[in-house]
Protein backbone atom coordinates (compact mmCIF):
# COMPACT_ATOMS: atom_id res chain seq x y z
CA UNK A 1 0.00 0.00 0.00
CA UNK A 2 1.22 3.48 -0.79
CA UNK A 3 1.95 5.59 2.22
CA UNK A 4 -1.09 7.68 3.05
CA UNK A 5 -0.35 11.39 2.79
CA UNK A 6 -3.11 13.80 3.65
CA UNK A 7 -3.83 16.85 1.52
CA UNK A 8 -2.79 19.18 4.34
CA UNK A 9 0.45 17.39 4.71
CA UNK A 10 1.07 17.64 0.98
CA UNK A 11 0.32 21.36 0.98
CA UNK A 12 2.69 21.85 3.90
CA UNK A 13 5.46 19.87 2.20
CA UNK A 14 5.01 21.85 -0.99
CA UNK A 15 5.16 25.10 0.94
CA UNK A 16 8.26 23.96 2.79
CA UNK A 17 10.01 22.92 -0.42
CA UNK A 18 9.28 26.26 -2.06
CA UNK A 19 10.46 28.14 1.02
CA UNK A 20 13.75 26.26 1.13
CA UNK A 21 14.15 26.68 -2.62
CA UNK A 22 13.51 30.42 -2.32
CA UNK A 23 16.00 30.78 0.55
CA UNK A 24 18.68 29.05 -1.49
CA UNK A 25 17.90 31.12 -4.56
CA UNK A 26 17.57 34.42 -2.68
CA UNK A 27 21.26 35.49 -2.77
CA UNK A 28 21.28 35.02 -6.52
CA UNK A 29 18.05 36.93 -6.87
CA UNK A 30 19.44 39.73 -4.65
CA UNK A 31 22.57 39.90 -6.78
CA UNK A 32 20.50 40.20 -9.94
CA UNK A 33 18.26 42.88 -8.39
CA UNK A 34 21.25 44.84 -7.08
CA UNK A 35 22.81 44.84 -10.53
CA UNK A 36 19.92 47.03 -11.69
CA UNK A 37 20.26 49.55 -8.83
CA UNK A 38 22.31 52.68 -8.61
CA UNK A 39 25.30 52.43 -6.26
CA UNK A 40 23.36 54.58 -3.76
CA UNK A 41 20.30 52.31 -3.80
CA UNK A 42 22.54 49.28 -3.53
CA UNK A 43 23.83 50.30 -0.11
CA UNK A 44 20.58 51.93 1.08
CA UNK A 45 19.56 51.11 4.64
CA UNK A 46 16.93 49.71 5.05
CA UNK A 47 17.52 47.80 1.79
CA UNK A 48 15.11 48.39 -1.07
CA UNK A 49 13.62 45.21 -2.50
CA UNK A 50 11.85 46.21 -5.71
CA UNK A 51 10.91 49.88 -5.40
CA UNK A 52 14.05 51.42 -6.80
CA UNK A 53 14.86 53.16 -10.06
CA UNK A 54 15.79 50.38 -12.46
CA UNK A 55 18.91 51.19 -14.42
CA UNK A 56 21.22 49.45 -16.89
CA UNK A 57 24.03 51.84 -16.05
CA UNK A 58 26.12 49.25 -14.18
CA UNK A 59 26.11 46.89 -17.16
CA UNK A 60 27.23 49.72 -19.37
CA UNK A 61 30.10 50.60 -17.06
CA UNK A 62 31.20 47.00 -16.67
CA UNK A 63 31.13 46.38 -20.42
CA UNK A 64 33.08 49.55 -21.00
CA UNK A 65 35.67 48.92 -18.36
CA UNK A 66 36.49 45.29 -19.07
CA UNK A 67 36.50 42.93 -21.98
CA UNK A 68 33.66 40.61 -20.97
CA UNK A 69 33.93 38.60 -24.17
CA UNK A 70 37.53 37.60 -23.46
CA UNK A 71 36.68 36.32 -19.99
CA UNK A 72 33.67 34.48 -21.40
CA UNK A 73 35.74 32.80 -24.09
CA UNK A 74 38.34 31.80 -21.51
CA UNK A 75 35.65 30.29 -19.30
CA UNK A 76 34.17 28.34 -22.19
CA UNK A 77 37.57 27.09 -23.35
CA UNK A 78 38.70 26.11 -19.85
CA UNK A 79 35.44 24.48 -18.72
CA UNK A 80 34.78 22.85 -22.09
CA UNK A 81 38.37 21.77 -22.65
CA UNK A 82 38.79 20.24 -19.23
CA UNK A 83 35.46 18.44 -19.60
CA UNK A 84 36.31 16.91 -22.96
CA UNK A 85 39.83 15.99 -21.90
CA UNK A 86 38.40 14.55 -18.67
CA UNK A 87 35.89 12.40 -20.53
CA UNK A 88 38.61 11.05 -22.80
CA UNK A 89 40.48 9.83 -19.74
CA UNK A 90 37.53 8.96 -17.50
CA UNK A 91 35.44 6.92 -19.93
CA UNK A 92 38.07 4.24 -20.64
CA UNK A 93 39.10 4.25 -16.97
CA UNK A 94 35.55 3.80 -15.68
CA UNK A 95 34.86 1.29 -18.43
CA UNK A 96 37.67 -1.01 -17.44
CA UNK A 97 36.96 -0.61 -13.72
CA UNK A 98 33.30 -1.51 -14.24
CA UNK A 99 33.70 -4.39 -16.66
CA UNK A 100 37.17 -5.80 -16.07
CA UNK A 101 37.67 -5.11 -12.37
CA UNK A 102 40.82 -6.24 -10.62
CA UNK A 103 41.36 -6.93 -6.95
CA UNK A 104 42.50 -3.33 -6.44
CA UNK A 105 39.69 -1.56 -8.30
CA UNK A 106 37.76 -0.55 -5.18
CA UNK A 107 40.93 0.71 -3.51
CA UNK A 108 41.88 2.79 -6.53
CA UNK A 109 38.42 4.36 -6.62
CA UNK A 110 38.56 5.27 -2.94
CA UNK A 111 42.10 6.54 -3.24
CA UNK A 112 41.08 8.75 -6.15
CA UNK A 113 38.19 10.14 -4.18
CA UNK A 114 40.41 10.75 -1.16
CA UNK A 115 42.41 13.26 -3.20
CA UNK A 116 39.28 15.44 -3.13
CA UNK A 117 39.52 15.60 0.65
CA UNK A 118 42.93 17.25 0.54
CA UNK A 119 42.73 21.05 0.92
CA UNK A 120 43.62 22.43 -2.49
CA UNK A 121 45.80 25.12 -1.01
CA UNK A 122 48.13 22.36 0.22
CA UNK A 123 49.36 21.76 -3.33
CA UNK A 124 49.11 25.33 -4.55
CA UNK A 125 52.76 26.09 -4.02
CA UNK A 126 54.19 23.09 -5.92
CA UNK A 127 51.69 23.49 -8.74
CA UNK A 128 52.42 27.22 -8.96
CA UNK A 129 56.14 26.51 -9.16
CA UNK A 130 55.58 23.80 -11.75
CA UNK A 131 53.60 26.22 -13.86
CA UNK A 132 56.39 28.78 -13.68
CA UNK A 133 59.04 26.19 -14.52
CA UNK A 134 57.06 24.96 -17.49
CA UNK A 135 56.24 28.50 -18.55
CA UNK A 136 52.51 27.86 -18.53
CA UNK A 137 51.41 30.23 -15.79
CA UNK A 138 48.34 32.18 -16.91
CA UNK A 139 47.75 29.89 -19.89
CA UNK A 140 44.52 28.21 -20.92
CA UNK A 141 46.34 24.94 -21.48
CA UNK A 142 47.52 24.78 -17.87
CA UNK A 143 44.01 25.57 -16.59
CA UNK A 144 42.44 22.91 -18.82
CA UNK A 145 44.86 20.28 -17.55
CA UNK A 146 44.67 21.30 -13.88
CA UNK A 147 40.87 21.53 -13.75
CA UNK A 148 40.64 18.23 -15.60
CA UNK A 149 42.82 16.60 -12.95
CA UNK A 150 40.89 18.25 -10.13
CA UNK A 151 37.56 16.91 -11.38
CA UNK A 152 38.77 13.58 -12.71
CA UNK A 153 37.97 11.58 -9.55
CA UNK A 154 34.36 12.73 -9.65
CA UNK A 155 34.05 11.98 -13.36
CA UNK A 156 35.48 8.49 -12.98
CA UNK A 157 33.22 7.78 -10.01
CA UNK A 158 30.10 8.98 -11.77
CA UNK A 159 30.80 7.08 -14.96
CA UNK A 160 31.82 3.99 -13.02
CA UNK A 161 28.48 4.07 -11.19
CA UNK A 162 26.59 4.40 -14.47
CA UNK A 163 28.51 1.66 -16.20
CA UNK A 164 28.01 -0.61 -13.21
CA UNK A 165 24.27 -0.32 -13.73
CA UNK A 166 24.58 -1.86 -17.19
CA UNK A 167 24.10 -5.61 -16.69
CA UNK A 168 27.05 -7.69 -17.85
CA UNK A 169 24.54 -10.20 -19.24
CA UNK A 170 23.58 -7.74 -21.95
CA UNK A 171 27.19 -7.36 -23.06
CA UNK A 172 27.62 -11.11 -23.02
CA UNK A 173 24.44 -11.51 -25.05
CA UNK A 174 25.89 -9.14 -27.63
CA UNK A 175 29.08 -11.18 -27.67
CA UNK A 176 27.05 -14.37 -28.22
CA UNK A 177 25.12 -12.59 -30.96
CA UNK A 178 28.35 -12.05 -32.86
CA UNK A 179 29.20 -8.46 -31.98
CA UNK A 180 32.89 -7.61 -32.05
CA UNK A 181 34.30 -5.47 -29.25
CA UNK A 182 33.90 -2.39 -31.44
CA UNK A 183 30.30 -3.25 -32.29
CA UNK A 184 29.57 -4.07 -28.67
CA UNK A 185 30.78 -0.61 -27.62
CA UNK A 186 29.11 1.15 -30.51
CA UNK A 187 25.69 -0.49 -30.65
CA UNK A 188 25.10 -1.67 -27.10
CA UNK A 189 27.19 0.08 -24.45
CA UNK A 190 27.32 3.64 -25.71
CA UNK A 191 23.58 4.00 -26.38
CA UNK A 192 22.88 2.59 -22.94
CA UNK A 193 25.45 4.83 -21.25
CA UNK A 194 24.60 8.08 -23.03
CA UNK A 195 22.40 9.52 -20.24
CA UNK A 196 25.21 8.87 -17.77
CA UNK A 197 27.89 10.36 -19.99
CA UNK A 198 25.71 13.41 -20.63
CA UNK A 199 25.07 14.12 -16.95
CA UNK A 200 28.73 13.61 -16.12
CA UNK A 201 29.69 16.02 -18.86
CA UNK A 202 27.20 18.61 -17.72
CA UNK A 203 28.06 18.45 -14.05
CA UNK A 204 31.74 18.61 -14.77
CA UNK A 205 31.29 21.58 -17.06
CA UNK A 206 29.49 23.44 -14.27
CA UNK A 207 32.09 22.49 -11.67
CA UNK A 208 34.87 23.70 -13.94
CA UNK A 209 32.97 26.88 -14.80
CA UNK A 210 32.51 27.72 -11.12
CA UNK A 211 36.02 26.75 -10.03
CA UNK A 212 37.59 29.84 -8.48
CA UNK A 213 40.55 28.78 -6.34
CA UNK A 214 42.84 27.63 -9.12
CA UNK A 215 41.68 30.09 -11.73
CA UNK A 216 42.20 33.04 -9.39
CA UNK A 217 45.62 31.88 -8.29
CA UNK A 218 47.07 30.74 -11.57
CA UNK A 219 45.68 33.24 -14.07
CA UNK A 220 45.88 37.00 -14.35
CA UNK A 221 45.23 38.29 -17.84
CA UNK A 222 45.56 35.90 -20.77
CA UNK A 223 43.71 32.92 -19.34
CA UNK A 224 41.50 34.67 -16.80
CA UNK A 225 37.95 33.28 -16.88
CA UNK A 226 34.73 34.81 -15.54
CA UNK A 227 35.60 34.00 -11.92
CA UNK A 228 38.51 36.43 -12.27
CA UNK A 229 36.17 38.89 -13.95
CA UNK A 230 33.93 38.90 -10.84
CA UNK A 231 36.89 39.12 -8.51
CA UNK A 232 38.22 42.16 -10.30
CA UNK A 233 35.09 44.06 -9.18
CA UNK A 234 35.27 43.16 -5.54
CA UNK A 235 36.99 45.68 -3.35
CA UNK A 236 37.75 45.35 0.34
CA UNK A 237 35.60 48.34 1.22
CA UNK A 238 32.63 47.01 -0.77
CA UNK A 239 32.02 50.35 -2.39
CA UNK A 240 30.77 49.17 -5.76
CA UNK A 241 28.08 46.66 -4.90
CA UNK A 242 25.98 47.40 -7.93
CA UNK A 243 28.84 46.99 -10.38
CA UNK A 244 30.05 43.85 -8.64
CA UNK A 245 26.50 42.50 -8.90
CA UNK A 246 26.30 43.34 -12.57
CA UNK A 247 29.59 41.56 -13.22
CA UNK A 248 28.45 38.57 -11.16
CA UNK A 249 25.14 38.38 -13.00
CA UNK A 250 26.94 38.42 -16.33
CA UNK A 251 29.32 35.71 -15.15
CA UNK A 252 26.70 33.34 -13.84
CA UNK A 253 24.07 33.97 -16.55
CA UNK A 254 25.44 31.45 -19.08
CA UNK A 255 25.69 28.64 -16.53
CA UNK A 256 22.32 29.54 -14.99
CA UNK A 257 20.67 29.24 -18.41
CA UNK A 258 22.49 26.00 -19.15
CA UNK A 259 21.43 24.61 -15.78
CA UNK A 260 17.82 25.63 -16.33
CA UNK A 261 17.59 23.76 -19.62
CA UNK A 262 19.30 20.65 -18.34
CA UNK A 263 17.65 20.31 -14.93
CA UNK A 264 16.60 16.73 -15.48
CA UNK A 265 20.07 15.54 -16.46
CA UNK A 266 21.61 17.50 -13.60
CA UNK A 267 19.37 16.01 -10.95
CA UNK A 268 20.20 12.57 -12.29
CA UNK A 269 23.85 13.49 -12.21
CA UNK A 270 23.84 14.87 -8.70
CA UNK A 271 21.95 11.94 -7.23
CA UNK A 272 24.09 9.37 -9.00
CA UNK A 273 24.07 6.03 -7.32
CA UNK A 274 21.36 7.15 -4.93
CA UNK A 275 18.42 6.22 -7.11
CA UNK A 276 18.33 2.90 -8.87
Amino acid at each position, binding site marked *: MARAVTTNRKAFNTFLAWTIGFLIFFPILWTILTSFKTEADAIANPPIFLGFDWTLENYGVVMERSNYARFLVNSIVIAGGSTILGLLVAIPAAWSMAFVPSRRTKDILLWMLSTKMLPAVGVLYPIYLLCIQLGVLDSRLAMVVILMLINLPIMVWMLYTYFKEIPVDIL*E*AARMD*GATLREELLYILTPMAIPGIASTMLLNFILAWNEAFWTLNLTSVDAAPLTAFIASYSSPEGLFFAKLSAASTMAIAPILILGWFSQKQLVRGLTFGAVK
Partner: protein
Amino acid sequence: MGRITLEKVQKKFGDVEVIPPLDLEINDGEFVVFVGPSGCGKSTLLRLIAGLEDVSGGQINIDGADATNVPPAKRSLAMVFQSYALYPHMTVRKNIAFPMRMAGMEQAEQNRRIESAAAALNLTDYLDRRPGQLSGGQRQRVAIGRAIVREPAAFLFDEPLSNLDAALRVGMRMEISELHKKLDTTMVYVTHDQVEAMTLADKIVVLRAGHIEQVGSPLDLYRAPRNTFVAGFIGSPKMNLIEGSAAAEHDATTIGIRPEHLDVSKTSGKWQGTVGVAEHLGSDTFIHIHGIEGCDPMTVRAGGEVDAKHGDTIYLTPQVEHLHRFDAQGLRIA
Protein backbone atom coordinates in the same frame (compact mmCIF):
# COMPACT_ATOMS: atom_id res chain seq x y z
CA MET B 1 23.99 -30.58 -36.17
CA GLY B 2 24.82 -29.93 -32.55
CA ARG B 3 27.06 -32.51 -30.97
CA ILE B 4 29.04 -31.17 -28.02
CA THR B 5 31.81 -33.13 -26.34
CA LEU B 6 33.71 -32.04 -23.26
CA GLU B 7 37.04 -33.75 -22.66
CA LYS B 8 38.74 -33.23 -19.29
CA VAL B 9 37.30 -29.73 -19.16
CA GLN B 10 38.49 -27.91 -16.09
CA LYS B 11 37.89 -24.45 -14.63
CA LYS B 12 39.77 -22.63 -11.93
CA PHE B 13 39.19 -19.13 -10.60
CA GLY B 14 42.60 -18.27 -9.21
CA ASP B 15 43.50 -21.17 -6.95
CA VAL B 16 39.94 -22.33 -6.55
CA GLU B 17 38.98 -25.24 -8.74
CA VAL B 18 35.28 -24.84 -9.45
CA ILE B 19 35.15 -27.60 -12.03
CA PRO B 20 37.60 -30.47 -11.73
CA PRO B 21 38.44 -32.23 -15.03
CA LEU B 22 35.15 -33.49 -16.41
CA ASP B 23 33.99 -35.48 -19.44
CA LEU B 24 30.56 -35.17 -20.98
CA GLU B 25 28.89 -36.00 -24.24
CA ILE B 26 25.83 -34.17 -25.56
CA ASN B 27 24.32 -35.76 -28.64
CA ASP B 28 22.75 -34.00 -31.57
CA GLY B 29 19.14 -33.03 -30.92
CA GLU B 30 19.29 -33.99 -27.27
CA PHE B 31 17.71 -31.94 -24.48
CA VAL B 32 20.27 -31.99 -21.69
CA VAL B 33 19.60 -30.42 -18.31
CA PHE B 34 22.34 -29.50 -15.84
CA VAL B 35 20.85 -29.59 -12.38
CA GLY B 36 22.28 -29.12 -8.92
CA PRO B 37 22.20 -26.89 -5.88
CA SER B 38 23.39 -23.27 -6.00
CA GLY B 39 27.12 -22.96 -6.53
CA CYS B 40 27.56 -26.45 -7.96
CA GLY B 41 29.18 -25.09 -11.12
CA LYS B 42 26.31 -25.73 -13.53
CA SER B 43 26.17 -22.16 -14.85
CA THR B 44 29.96 -22.05 -15.10
CA LEU B 45 29.89 -25.23 -17.15
CA LEU B 46 27.31 -23.70 -19.49
CA ARG B 47 29.39 -20.53 -19.82
CA LEU B 48 32.44 -22.64 -20.66
CA ILE B 49 30.48 -24.28 -23.47
CA ALA B 50 29.26 -20.85 -24.61
CA GLY B 51 32.80 -19.49 -24.59
CA LEU B 52 31.97 -16.70 -22.13
CA GLU B 53 34.53 -18.21 -19.76
CA ASP B 54 37.87 -19.64 -20.82
CA VAL B 55 38.65 -23.20 -19.81
CA SER B 56 41.62 -23.77 -17.52
CA GLY B 57 42.29 -27.14 -19.11
CA GLY B 58 40.76 -29.73 -21.44
CA GLN B 59 38.98 -29.43 -24.72
CA ILE B 60 35.50 -28.57 -25.97
CA ASN B 61 34.43 -30.02 -29.30
CA ILE B 62 31.41 -28.85 -31.22
CA ASP B 63 30.42 -31.09 -34.12
CA GLY B 64 33.78 -32.79 -34.01
CA ALA B 65 35.82 -29.60 -34.31
CA ASP B 66 37.90 -28.24 -31.47
CA ALA B 67 36.10 -25.10 -30.28
CA THR B 68 38.11 -24.54 -27.10
CA ASN B 69 39.61 -21.27 -28.28
CA VAL B 70 36.88 -20.22 -30.67
CA PRO B 71 35.17 -16.94 -29.64
CA PRO B 72 31.53 -17.22 -28.46
CA ALA B 73 29.98 -15.82 -31.62
CA LYS B 74 31.78 -18.32 -33.85
CA ARG B 75 30.57 -21.41 -32.00
CA SER B 76 27.12 -21.26 -33.63
CA LEU B 77 25.49 -21.46 -30.23
CA ALA B 78 22.67 -19.22 -29.03
CA MET B 79 22.15 -18.40 -25.40
CA VAL B 80 19.09 -17.38 -23.40
CA PHE B 81 19.95 -15.64 -20.14
CA GLN B 82 18.16 -15.70 -16.80
CA SER B 83 17.80 -11.91 -16.95
CA TYR B 84 16.72 -12.15 -20.63
CA ALA B 85 19.56 -9.69 -21.44
CA LEU B 86 17.50 -7.84 -24.03
CA TYR B 87 18.88 -4.60 -25.45
CA PRO B 88 16.71 -2.01 -23.69
CA HIS B 89 17.24 0.75 -26.25
CA MET B 90 16.09 -1.37 -29.20
CA THR B 91 12.61 -2.45 -30.24
CA VAL B 92 11.66 -6.11 -30.16
CA ARG B 93 12.21 -6.27 -33.91
CA LYS B 94 15.73 -4.83 -33.61
CA ASN B 95 16.52 -7.09 -30.69
CA ILE B 96 15.60 -10.16 -32.70
CA ALA B 97 17.41 -8.81 -35.77
CA PHE B 98 20.64 -8.03 -33.90
CA PRO B 99 22.48 -11.35 -34.37
CA MET B 100 21.51 -11.40 -38.04
CA ARG B 101 22.63 -7.79 -38.46
CA MET B 102 25.97 -8.69 -36.89
CA ALA B 103 26.26 -11.60 -39.30
CA GLY B 104 25.57 -9.24 -42.21
CA MET B 105 22.52 -11.14 -43.39
CA GLU B 106 20.51 -9.46 -46.14
CA GLN B 107 17.48 -7.45 -45.07
CA ALA B 108 14.80 -9.51 -46.82
CA GLU B 109 16.00 -12.71 -45.18
CA GLN B 110 16.20 -10.95 -41.80
CA ASN B 111 12.59 -9.80 -42.13
CA ARG B 112 11.41 -13.24 -43.16
CA ARG B 113 13.03 -14.83 -40.11
CA ILE B 114 11.77 -12.13 -37.75
CA GLU B 115 8.21 -12.57 -38.99
CA SER B 116 8.32 -16.32 -38.66
CA ALA B 117 9.90 -16.24 -35.20
CA ALA B 118 7.40 -13.61 -34.05
CA ALA B 119 4.50 -15.69 -35.33
CA ALA B 120 5.80 -18.81 -33.60
CA LEU B 121 6.27 -16.97 -30.30
CA ASN B 122 3.10 -14.82 -30.37
CA LEU B 123 5.14 -11.63 -30.61
CA THR B 124 3.79 -10.23 -33.88
CA ASP B 125 1.82 -7.45 -32.14
CA TYR B 126 4.79 -6.40 -30.02
CA LEU B 127 7.50 -6.05 -32.64
CA ASP B 128 7.64 -2.28 -32.38
CA ARG B 129 7.66 -2.11 -28.60
CA ARG B 130 10.69 -1.87 -26.39
CA PRO B 131 11.58 -4.55 -23.83
CA GLY B 132 10.57 -2.21 -20.99
CA GLN B 133 6.98 -2.27 -22.22
CA LEU B 134 6.71 -6.07 -22.13
CA SER B 135 5.81 -8.52 -19.38
CA GLY B 136 8.34 -11.03 -18.06
CA GLY B 137 6.96 -13.86 -20.17
CA GLN B 138 6.99 -11.74 -23.32
CA ARG B 139 10.57 -10.66 -22.66
CA GLN B 140 11.58 -14.27 -22.29
CA ARG B 141 9.92 -15.03 -25.64
CA VAL B 142 11.87 -12.18 -27.27
CA ALA B 143 15.08 -13.64 -25.86
CA ILE B 144 14.14 -17.02 -27.32
CA GLY B 145 13.22 -15.35 -30.61
CA ARG B 146 16.62 -13.70 -30.74
CA ALA B 147 18.16 -17.14 -30.24
CA ILE B 148 16.14 -19.07 -32.83
CA VAL B 149 16.58 -16.67 -35.76
CA ARG B 150 20.26 -17.55 -35.81
CA GLU B 151 19.39 -21.19 -36.45
CA PRO B 152 22.19 -22.27 -34.12
CA ALA B 153 23.68 -25.72 -33.74
CA ALA B 154 22.61 -25.70 -30.09
CA PHE B 155 20.68 -23.55 -27.65
CA LEU B 156 22.02 -22.79 -24.21
CA PHE B 157 19.54 -21.80 -21.51
CA ASP B 158 20.78 -20.36 -18.21
CA GLU B 159 17.93 -20.68 -15.70
CA PRO B 160 15.57 -19.01 -18.15
CA LEU B 161 12.44 -19.38 -16.02
CA SER B 162 13.75 -18.30 -12.62
CA ASN B 163 12.47 -14.74 -12.92
CA LEU B 164 8.92 -15.72 -13.85
CA ASP B 165 6.04 -16.36 -11.49
CA ALA B 166 4.96 -19.93 -10.85
CA ALA B 167 2.03 -20.05 -13.28
CA LEU B 168 3.98 -18.50 -16.13
CA ARG B 169 6.89 -20.81 -15.43
CA VAL B 170 4.78 -23.91 -16.09
CA GLY B 171 3.48 -22.40 -19.33
CA MET B 172 6.93 -21.37 -20.58
CA ARG B 173 8.32 -24.77 -19.64
CA MET B 174 5.82 -26.35 -21.96
CA GLU B 175 6.60 -23.87 -24.73
CA ILE B 176 10.30 -24.62 -24.49
CA SER B 177 9.60 -28.33 -24.59
CA GLU B 178 7.44 -27.94 -27.69
CA LEU B 179 10.03 -25.71 -29.30
CA HIS B 180 12.58 -28.45 -28.82
CA LYS B 181 10.33 -31.05 -30.43
CA LYS B 182 9.63 -28.72 -33.35
CA LEU B 183 13.20 -27.57 -34.00
CA ASP B 184 14.86 -30.84 -33.05
CA THR B 185 17.98 -28.89 -32.11
CA THR B 186 20.35 -29.66 -29.25
CA MET B 187 19.43 -27.78 -26.10
CA VAL B 188 21.50 -27.44 -22.95
CA TYR B 189 19.51 -26.13 -20.03
CA VAL B 190 20.67 -25.11 -16.58
CA THR B 191 18.31 -25.10 -13.61
CA HIS B 192 18.30 -25.67 -9.89
CA ASP B 193 14.70 -26.83 -10.08
CA GLN B 194 14.54 -30.60 -10.29
CA VAL B 195 10.92 -30.48 -11.52
CA GLU B 196 12.06 -28.50 -14.58
CA ALA B 197 14.85 -31.01 -15.07
CA MET B 198 12.52 -34.00 -14.86
CA THR B 199 9.89 -32.57 -17.19
CA LEU B 200 12.17 -31.18 -19.90
CA ALA B 201 15.19 -33.40 -20.14
CA ASP B 202 16.11 -36.29 -22.36
CA LYS B 203 19.21 -36.51 -20.24
CA ILE B 204 19.88 -35.04 -16.81
CA VAL B 205 23.35 -34.22 -15.55
CA VAL B 206 23.37 -33.90 -11.76
CA LEU B 207 26.23 -31.74 -10.51
CA ARG B 208 27.65 -31.14 -7.06
CA ALA B 209 30.71 -28.99 -6.38
CA GLY B 210 31.72 -29.22 -10.03
CA HIS B 211 31.56 -33.02 -10.08
CA ILE B 212 29.10 -34.96 -12.19
CA GLU B 213 27.22 -37.13 -9.72
CA GLN B 214 25.14 -38.97 -12.31
CA VAL B 215 24.05 -38.73 -15.92
CA GLY B 216 20.91 -40.41 -17.16
CA SER B 217 17.32 -40.12 -18.27
CA PRO B 218 14.91 -38.62 -15.73
CA LEU B 219 13.39 -41.99 -14.93
CA ASP B 220 16.79 -43.71 -14.63
CA LEU B 221 17.74 -41.14 -12.03
CA TYR B 222 14.44 -41.54 -10.25
CA ARG B 223 14.54 -45.30 -10.22
CA ALA B 224 18.23 -45.94 -9.64
CA PRO B 225 20.03 -42.95 -8.10
CA ARG B 226 23.73 -43.71 -7.96
CA ASN B 227 24.26 -42.21 -4.52
CA THR B 228 22.47 -40.55 -1.63
CA PHE B 229 22.98 -37.06 -3.09
CA VAL B 230 21.16 -37.85 -6.33
CA ALA B 231 18.57 -39.81 -4.35
CA GLY B 232 17.82 -36.76 -2.23
CA PHE B 233 17.97 -34.29 -5.11
CA ILE B 234 15.78 -35.94 -7.72
CA GLY B 235 12.10 -36.44 -6.89
CA SER B 236 9.62 -34.22 -5.10
CA PRO B 237 9.04 -34.40 -2.19
CA LYS B 238 12.53 -35.66 -1.41
CA MET B 239 13.37 -39.28 -0.84
CA ASN B 240 13.50 -40.24 2.85
CA LEU B 241 16.98 -41.42 3.81
CA ILE B 242 17.04 -43.63 6.88
CA GLU B 243 20.12 -44.57 8.87
CA GLY B 244 20.71 -46.83 11.83
CA SER B 245 19.04 -50.11 12.71
CA ALA B 246 16.35 -49.88 10.05
CA ALA B 247 19.10 -49.66 7.42
CA ALA B 248 21.18 -52.41 9.01
CA GLU B 249 18.22 -54.78 8.59
CA HIS B 250 18.78 -54.46 4.86
CA ASP B 251 22.60 -54.77 5.05
CA ALA B 252 23.08 -51.09 4.24
CA THR B 253 24.35 -47.96 5.98
CA THR B 254 21.53 -45.87 4.58
CA ILE B 255 18.27 -46.92 3.02
CA GLY B 256 16.09 -44.66 0.92
CA ILE B 257 12.37 -44.80 0.40
CA ARG B 258 10.39 -42.29 -1.62
CA PRO B 259 7.31 -40.65 -0.01
CA GLU B 260 5.09 -42.35 -2.60
CA HIS B 261 6.43 -45.81 -1.69
CA LEU B 262 5.23 -45.85 1.91
CA ASP B 263 1.93 -47.41 2.96
CA VAL B 264 0.06 -45.44 5.58
CA SER B 265 -2.14 -46.91 8.27
CA LYS B 266 -3.74 -45.59 11.44
CA THR B 267 -3.72 -48.96 13.14
CA SER B 268 -0.60 -50.96 12.36
CA GLY B 269 2.64 -50.93 10.40
CA LYS B 270 6.39 -51.30 10.59
CA TRP B 271 7.23 -47.81 11.86
CA GLN B 272 5.26 -45.70 14.29
CA GLY B 273 5.33 -41.90 14.36
CA THR B 274 3.41 -38.71 15.07
CA VAL B 275 2.04 -36.34 12.45
CA GLY B 276 3.85 -33.01 12.47
CA VAL B 277 2.36 -31.23 9.49
CA ALA B 278 -0.13 -32.58 6.98
CA GLU B 279 -0.35 -30.70 3.68
CA HIS B 280 -3.69 -31.41 2.02
CA LEU B 281 -3.41 -30.63 -1.68
CA GLY B 282 -6.70 -32.24 -2.69
CA SER B 283 -5.23 -34.85 -4.99
CA ASP B 284 -2.51 -35.79 -2.53
CA THR B 285 -1.66 -35.37 1.10
CA PHE B 286 1.95 -34.85 2.13
CA ILE B 287 2.39 -35.86 5.75
CA HIS B 288 5.56 -35.02 7.67
CA ILE B 289 6.01 -37.51 10.49
CA HIS B 290 8.19 -37.20 13.55
CA GLY B 291 9.48 -39.84 15.93
CA ILE B 292 10.77 -42.46 13.50
CA GLU B 293 14.30 -43.48 14.34
CA GLY B 294 16.99 -42.60 11.79
CA CYS B 295 14.89 -40.15 9.77
CA ASP B 296 13.15 -37.11 11.17
CA PRO B 297 10.86 -35.94 9.74
CA MET B 298 9.80 -38.67 7.34
CA THR B 299 7.62 -37.52 4.47
CA VAL B 300 4.78 -39.60 3.09
CA ARG B 301 2.69 -39.03 0.03
CA ALA B 302 -0.76 -40.34 0.74
CA GLY B 303 -4.03 -40.11 -1.14
CA GLY B 304 -6.16 -36.98 -0.99
CA GLU B 305 -8.78 -38.65 1.14
CA VAL B 306 -6.43 -39.44 4.02
CA ASP B 307 -7.47 -37.71 7.22
CA ALA B 308 -4.42 -36.78 9.26
CA LYS B 309 -4.00 -34.00 11.80
CA HIS B 310 -1.16 -32.65 13.84
CA GLY B 311 -0.44 -35.00 16.74
CA ASP B 312 -2.14 -38.10 15.29
CA THR B 313 -0.30 -41.38 15.66
CA ILE B 314 0.39 -43.01 12.34
CA TYR B 315 2.00 -46.25 11.10
CA LEU B 316 4.16 -46.60 8.00
CA THR B 317 5.26 -49.63 6.04
CA PRO B 318 7.83 -49.28 3.23
CA GLN B 319 7.24 -51.13 -0.04
CA VAL B 320 10.32 -53.34 0.05
CA GLU B 321 10.60 -53.65 -3.75
CA HIS B 322 11.08 -49.85 -3.95
CA LEU B 323 13.73 -49.65 -1.26
CA HIS B 324 17.11 -48.12 -2.22
CA ARG B 325 20.23 -49.30 -0.37
CA PHE B 326 23.43 -47.26 0.04
CA ASP B 327 26.78 -48.17 1.60
CA ALA B 328 28.94 -46.21 4.03
CA GLN B 329 30.24 -44.00 1.18
CA GLY B 330 26.69 -43.20 0.17
CA LEU B 331 26.98 -45.27 -3.02
CA ARG B 332 24.14 -47.43 -4.28
CA ILE B 333 24.28 -51.13 -3.48
CA ALA B 334 22.98 -53.08 -6.47
